[in-house]
């Protein structure tokens, strides 16, 4: 089955081309059926591959030559695919979430004039994401990496007539592109050092010390390469300080947020770091950077999420924060814990987004202030959201608990108490903000004006399935199943793992419950006024509410200077460079208009001048030849 793994992305691609051929006016049912069917086939194939991998282990990559551009080794690009335990898991996650999101979209996007186009884009995304996962080398990964970025751009800007959506699409692309440029540079450096883009070749080169270029030593190169690769990962996974695009990307339709900006694409950064873990392992500096950036992102995202008023933005910051956890895990070499968290997070975050989408679909607003009391009116949505929230908060026995605890335990085991503390605080914030959303949305009095109704089965079925995963996915890696997932993944050399002991479990459970409790006091029971809290802590509140002023900072430090520079260059271009050219032209013209007065039109004058010229010529040549003759 593994030999046919290329079919997994190929089928969504075929479906995409089919929809493209059918055009924009295709019937909604047809488009949705094609989409769901294609992803369902991919899911089935992925599961078969997963089982094969679980039984037989890894396989050599299947490669063929893409481009040969010179003689000798190192001048060939290869393309192909490979399947190992990590990407077999990713295939399942991606195709599973994709299938559900495509099903959900049938209801969510119903009635949109560009329904067919939406499915086209989604299928293109699924193809790219699956392709990214089975890429055997950095170059091919980069190709799909950019393609998923493109799909994200198209889908965020799907409602292009909204200026915010248009701006968000551009921002998401440009900010991730910033990371991608670093990634490309890193890939090229590694390629120059090893003559190959292949993960395994590069890993082998690192182990055998074959990693060097004439201008930098092996250690420096490993650090530089790892940091550049991490730059790309940070852009895609919205890590501090490149996290600013992800909340804006919420301008896209909610299924897009669930699929791309929660479960799959944003996790690609984590996947990339995990896949090239050998590289990071060779550089302690790079690992530290990854760990601390992850820690900062986790706390930063959670802190901003505390105060946002838009339901999707809260979940978006939550995603940023959770991705920070994963990076932090990788940074302390807790490889399988991070991947485990990626796995569980994909389900419960997709669930939260889809449930939020269901709510938005019903109340037609994203403002938390205009929701409330939806528990009774939308019971399925509310209860599945609750599952997601519990999983996110890390309440046992939900999925998030097992994976997050493993990361936190690993930070302690790695001797990084600071990171552990950051993670704990972030966990507290997480529990608080997600239950703040829960209480504001589903309890109390309804504050909107449109009568909400529970969504249809196409939307609730995915919610229920995801809720089950949010509950049970964590058991795959829990102590009582003997860390099955971790064993399946296997440990790359250098990774250090620590199972969460009862102490960590107890603390984190307590912290989560504390957060939930505080949220309940503030927004459920209304025992304490959130306004009073925000007033007494106003500097922190303002910081959090204004997202720590990152957008303003970037605007002032990067965007405006760049534009000013552009204006200045443009001025130099038009006035000075072109000015010199025009000056030359004007000078020529001026001289010419002076000289042309000599042209009197009097033939006799011309003749006279000619005569004088002849005489002068004779005189000159004579004086020159005088010496020659004598």
């Amino acid at each position, binding site marked *: 089955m593994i030999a046919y793994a290329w079919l997994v992305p190929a089928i969504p691609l075929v479906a995409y081309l089919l929809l493209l051929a059918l055009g924009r006016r295709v019937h909604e049912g047809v488009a949705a059926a094609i989409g769901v069917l294609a992803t369902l086939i991919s899911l089935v194939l992925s599961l078969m591959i997963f089982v094969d991998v679980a039984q037989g282990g890894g396989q050599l990559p299947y490669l063929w030559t893409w481009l040969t551009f010179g003689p000798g080794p190192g001048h060939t690009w290869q393309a192909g695919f490979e399947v190992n335990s990590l990407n077999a898991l990713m295939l399942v996650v991606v195709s599973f979430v994709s299938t559900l999101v495509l099903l959900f979209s049938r209801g969510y996007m119903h009635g949109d004039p560009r329904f067919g186009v939406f499915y086209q884009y989604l299928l293109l995304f699924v193809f790219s994401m699956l392709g990214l996962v089975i890429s055997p080398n950095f170059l091919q990964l980069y190709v799909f990496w950019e*393609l998923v970025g493109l799909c994200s751009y198209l889908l965020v800007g799907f409602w292009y007539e909204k200026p915010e959506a248009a701006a968000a699409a551009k921002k998401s692309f440009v900010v991730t592109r910033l990371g991608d440029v670093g990634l*490309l540079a890193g890939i090229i450096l590694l390629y120059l050092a090893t003559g190959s883009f292949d993960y395994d070749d590069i890993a082998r080169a690192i182990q055998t010390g074959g990693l060097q270029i004439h201008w930098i030593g092996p250690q420096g190169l490993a650090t530089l390469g790892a940091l550049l690769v991490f730059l790309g990962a940070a852009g895609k996974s919205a890590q501090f300080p490149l996290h600013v695009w992800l909340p804006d990307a919420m301008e896209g339709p909610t299924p897009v947020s669930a699929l791309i900006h929660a479960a799959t694409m944003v996790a690609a950064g984590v996947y990339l770091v995990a896949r090239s873990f050998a590289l990071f392992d060779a550089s302690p500096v790079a690992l530290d950077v990854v760990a601390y950036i992850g820690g900062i992102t986790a706390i930063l995202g959670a802190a901003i999420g505390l105060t946002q008023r838009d339901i999707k933005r809260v979940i978006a910051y939550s995603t940023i924060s959770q991705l920070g956890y994963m990076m932090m895990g990788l940074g302390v070499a807790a490889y399988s814990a991070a991947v485990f968290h990626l796995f569980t997070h994909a389900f419960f975050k997709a669930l939260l987004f889809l449930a939020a989408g269901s709510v938005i679909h019903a109340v037609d607003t994203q403002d938390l202030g205009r929701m409330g009391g939806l528990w009774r009116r939308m019971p399925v949505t509310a209860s599945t959201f609750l599952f997601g929230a519990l999983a996110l908060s890390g309440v046992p026995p939900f999925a998030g608990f097992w994976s997050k605890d493993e990361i936190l335990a690993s930070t302690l085991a790695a001797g990084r108490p600071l990171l552990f503390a950051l993670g704990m605080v972030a966990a507290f914030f997480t529990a608080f903000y997600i239950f703040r959303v829960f209480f504001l949305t589903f309890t109390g009095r309804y504050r909107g004006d449109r009568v909400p109704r529970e969504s249809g089965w196409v939307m609730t079925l995915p919610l229920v399935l995801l809720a089950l995963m949010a509950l049970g996915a964590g058991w795959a890696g829990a102590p009582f199943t003997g860390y099955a997932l971790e064993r399946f993944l296997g440990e790359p050399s250098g990774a250090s793992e620590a199972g969460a002991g009862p102490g960590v479990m107890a603390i984190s459970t307590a912290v989560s419950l504390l957060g939930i409790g505080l949220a309940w006091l503030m927004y459920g029971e209304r025992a304490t006024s959130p306004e009073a809290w925000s007033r007494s802590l106003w500097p922190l509140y303002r910081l959090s509410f204004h997202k720590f002023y990152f957008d303003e900072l970037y605007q002032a430090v990067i965007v405006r200077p760049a534009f000013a520079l*552009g204006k200045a260059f443009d001025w130099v271009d038009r006035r000075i460079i072109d000015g010199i050219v025009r000056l030359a032209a004007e000078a020529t013209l001026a001289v010419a208009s002076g000289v042309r007065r000599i042209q009197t039109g009097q033939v006799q004058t011309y003749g006279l001048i000619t005569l004088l010229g002849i005489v002068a010529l004779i005189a000159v040549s004579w004086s020159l030849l005088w010496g020659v003759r004598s």
Partner: protein
Amino acid sequence: MHVATLWVVLIPFAAGLISWLAPRDSRSLPRAAALLGSLVSAVLVGAMYLGYDRAAGGSQFAFSRPWFTVGDALADMPLTVTFGFGVDGLSLPLLALTAVVGFTAVWASKGIRNRTNEYYGWLMILLAGLYGVFASTDLFLLFFFLELILIPMYFLIGIWGGAERTKAAAKFLIYRGLSSIGIVVAFFGLAYLAGKIGGDMTLDVAALTRQLHGGAAAAQSAPVAGALFLLLLAAILVEEALVPFHTWLPFAHAQAPAPVNMILGGVVVKTGAYLFLRVAAGMMPAMVGRYAVLVAVIGVLNILWAGLIAFVQSDWRRLLAYTTISHMGIFLLAAASMTPAGLQGALFVAVSSGLLTALLFAGVGLIGERAGTVDMAGLGGLSKPMPYVSGLLLAGALGSLGLPGMGQFVGEVLSFSGSFSVFPRLSAFGIAGILLAAVYLLRAMQRTTFGPTPATKEHLRDGTVGEVLPMVLLLIAVIGVGVFPAVIGHTAGAALAALAAGIGG
């Protein structure tokens, strides 16, 4: 003796003459002749592309006759000029580019309504000249065609252009004319130097290259060779419209009609790239090696300079001009590395930038025709009334910023692979240009096709199948190059590897 290459040049020429003979303002006959001529020559190029024996390499389908001999006019040795045509791995991709862009530009010329017989006549002569540049195997002939290009370009801009068309045409002519001086001096100087040592003065590309790599290799490092190289480099900078000799390009683009812009930005600018690969890198590798840092610095300067200026352009055509300049900066940076990867990348960038520029100009031309303006300030929300044109324009913009799946990406990866191995620090600056491209192109797209649709633009007609066909063809071509880079890479591989090898020996 193959006459196929000769026909590639002659057929557009003949089509041009037929078009000239048609009655003034008659539309169908000149257009039909031009379409047929460009199609047949494109098919011929395609056939040669497929028939080119990659294993054998070298110049094939050659047609060569001695043309004339200058006794001792220039030097103390006779100079034989051949009337030679032929194709090799280096010229084939550019010929194919000319074929695709030429045909699509002719197709896209439907909007030209006045003096059509002259228009198509000039267009076809321009095409013949471009084919000639890439297919000549003699520097004299190459120069002849290079000059031939100027005449039709001058009239195409000067008659069918915008409000300041005559000024733009004159500027174009003066700049390119000045560069011709540098080129002709460099050509003859090089031939003379080689002849002095090698014993026989020739302008035949293959023979001259052989001389300069063989017995006359010392000519490469003669003191005057440095001056010749710098002169040639300056001329190439003008041809490619690179900073600081670039101001003619935005001006010409802003005035020329859309189909002419397709050829100007798509192919005419690329003749400089061809000259760099063919003459500078091919014949004076030692000089390229000596001035590599200078060339690379110019390349990086262009990437950043043009990229930043493109930020603040609101006229699409000026924006695209700076995009082209930025691409040519990547070309120069990559070519300066003289590694197989860098040279391949340079060629990929030249070809795919040509295709993408043509694609974007076709789209912009269509938008201009419908909306009456190509200034972003007057546009917005075009996705709604013109979804197909907007989509294709977006595809072009994305390709141009280096999205994988299109040729530009392959070019950029190869280019930077080459340049990082030689100029790591410079390349780090250069690669930032990729980011700039994303910013200005997406910003332009945002202002043009996204956002709310103004009432005046609500009822614009989308492009008909006939109108978007050129864009679709160009998109297919550039995706083809991006997905199957071997089509260019394997054809040009041997020729470029020989160039890269030249720097060592």
